[in-house]
């Protein structure tokens, strides 16, 4: 978008906050708004534009999320951070959809840990064989013991919050919250509602100094206007409303501007994620967030397909490449998500991982200097010669080499090696990674405490 249009959407969002307002279904949250001079009418909060602007300015442009292993710490607002699938209900195996189990999460955690592209762990699948009241604890146990990468989790319910803070205390001690360690992603309920649990979680997490990201998912035509600009303005109002609340609870608290809104199928009422309008709005979301100097979550490897097929590949690549080009800071559902937001595919997890690597490599700047221009080498070899014997070629022959399971061989060689399609090759790669997994170091006492916490 042009600067003028970004500004217009920002102003439209501010106008929604001031004129229409937002419903917060929690008493303490409403008092907090009232104390700070916002106009509270029942559950409806109308926010004066100057107060909103002040909140935007108090949120930092970047922050560091601390991992169990400091080498794995991540800076948000500096470079692309990719998290894998978050919270899929199902696992897609071949064409069969089945409910997720703890063994799936274990396998995925092992693969996430080894991935050079997945920077942080997510609740990639709901382990539905674990009773609901224990599920969050066991999921955290699994992720944080099998990997030392930092964690993002859906912080919207009291049990998740209690499990996450309890786990953090075991890992880092009572003062764990002195640093940002848990990144929570929450959703507003479009249009313009924050449910009670979401309000409470936002306030608790902000007071603990933990970064949060509110990601509205406006469904154009159903929970928002049918037009793209209207969707973006409403999404803007909602994520900014979340920001204002966190800044009231703790001024300067890290906040990620989120948005994953799309259009709705007007034939079925389903959200559409594999569509050009979604990709365009992902880019616009990043532009608006960066206009306000806020880190941004947008996009993902999302597809409406139910197979790791060419449709899935096209839609995933368009989404991820779009946000990466736009300079997005944080991508959730970066790898493995399938069937809209419903399922995780192990094959697609591996394929997307490769895709993220490709996108990162594609987006590296082309270095232009004396060495890389290689004018002398061209002059030495001259017309009709070949470069394979040159020292310059030998010095740079590994520059662009990346290990890959994508096919790079001729047809006959590919055929003689099994003639696999990409999904088959990915399945094999997944199996190899699970087998090759080596656990990162962790204090046995901590593991025991985490286990006790789960058994309590």
């Amino acid at each position, binding site marked *: 978008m042009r600067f003028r249009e970004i500004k217009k959407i920002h102003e439209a969002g501010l106008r929604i906050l001031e004129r229409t307002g937002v419903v917060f279904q929690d008493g303490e949250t409403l008092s907090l708004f009232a104390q700070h001079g916002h106009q509270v009418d029942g559950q409806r909060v109308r926010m004066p534009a100057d107060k909103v602007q002040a909140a935007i300015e108090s949120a930092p442009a970047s922050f560091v999320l601390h991992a169990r292993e400091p080498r794995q710490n991540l800076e948000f607002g500096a470079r692309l951070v990719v998290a894998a699938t978050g919270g899929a*209900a*199902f696992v897609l195996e071949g064409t069969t*959809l089945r*409910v997720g189990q703890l063994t799936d999460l274990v396998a995925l955690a092992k693969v996430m840990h080894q991935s050079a592209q997945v920077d942080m762990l997510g609740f990639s699948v*709901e382990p*539905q064989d674990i009773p*609901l009241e224990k599920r969050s604890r066991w999921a955290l146990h699994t992720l944080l013991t099998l990997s030392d990468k930092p964690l993002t989790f859906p912080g919207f*319910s009291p049990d998740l919050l209690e499990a996450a803070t309890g786990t953090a205390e075991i890992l880092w001690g009572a003062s764990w919250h002195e640093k940002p360690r848990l990144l929570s992603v929450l959703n507003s*309920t479009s249009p313009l509602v924050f*449910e009670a649990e979401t309000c409470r979680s936002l306030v608790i997490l902000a007071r603990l100094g933990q970064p949060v990201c509110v990601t509205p998912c406006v*469904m154009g*035509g*159903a*929970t928002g206007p*049918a037009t793209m600009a209207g969707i973006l303005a409403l999404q803007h109002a909602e994520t900014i409303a979340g920001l204002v609340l966190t800044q009231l609870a703790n001024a300067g608290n890290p906040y990620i501007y989120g948005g994953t809104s799309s259009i709705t199928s*007007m*034939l*079925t*009422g*389903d959200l559409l994620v594999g569509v050009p309008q979604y990709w365009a709005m992902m880019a616009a979301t990043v532009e608006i967030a960066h206009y306000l100097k806020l880190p941004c979550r947008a996009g993902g490897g999302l597809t409406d397909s139910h197979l790791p097929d060419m449709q899935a590949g096209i839609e995933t690549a368009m989404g991820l490449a779009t946000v990466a080009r736009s300079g997005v800071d944080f991508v959730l559902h970066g790898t493995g998500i399938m069937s*809209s*937001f*419903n399922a995780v595919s192990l094959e697609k997890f591996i394929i997307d991982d490769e895709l993220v690597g490709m996108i990162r490599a594609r987006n590296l700047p082309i270095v232009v200097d004396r060495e890389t221009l290689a004018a002398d080498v061209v002059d030495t070899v001259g017309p009709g010669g070949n470069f394979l014997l040159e020292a310059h070629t030998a010095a740079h022959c590994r520059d662009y080499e990346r290990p890959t399971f994508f096919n790079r061989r001729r047809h006959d060689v590919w055929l003689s090696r099994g003639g696999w399609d990409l999904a088959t090759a990915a399945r094999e790669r997944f199996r190899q990674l699970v087998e090759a997994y080596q656990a990162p170091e962790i204090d046995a006492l901590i593991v025991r405490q985490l286990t006790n916490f789960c058994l309590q």
Partner: protein
Amino acid sequence: MSLFEDLKLNVEQGKKEAVLALVAQALDQGHSAQQILQQGLIAAMDIVGAKMEQEEMFIPEVLRAAKTMEAGLEILKPLLGVGDMQVSGKVVMGTVKGDLHDIGKNLVAMLLSSAGFEVIDLGINVAPAVFAQKAEATGADFLGMSALLTTTMPMMAATIEELEKAGLRGRVRVLIGGAPVTQAYADQIGADGYASDAGAAIKVAKELGAVKA
């Protein structure tokens, strides 16, 4: 174009003023309210339903047609006898306990109502006992449940149990839907019908109604 053709076309296109005028005109010409309802309004919604299934009409267009049909029906109601208003079935529906998502449920409610069902919408966060109690009190033929979250889906099974306890399972057909809900889950918990979207929900309800009749 005959008067009824004109009426059906205007219902389909959601032209409320024209429909009101045409209904009045039909009454002036001596057609009975029953005839206008059956050959005009309901016939129009049958076309709309078929076009929705063929993916020729979009949801907002279908809803606008339904609203228009209801406006026409308002004029006819005082003139219709008790037996003239045939109802396809009575549906008690809502979003299950713990779940506040209601866009899909509302859509199904509107479409069911335009397809001739009497809909009693209990809203969101409806406890199993409330579902059972309302189904009993209203003499419902169907009970529809919606859930968006995997964590609230088990409330569907709990509600079915509640119906069984209340001795209602024999006469109330249970329909379920929502993003994480599948046919397999419906089979597992013993629901009578599952629909993947709002259009399909109407079809399933009609089929189950027919089976019952």
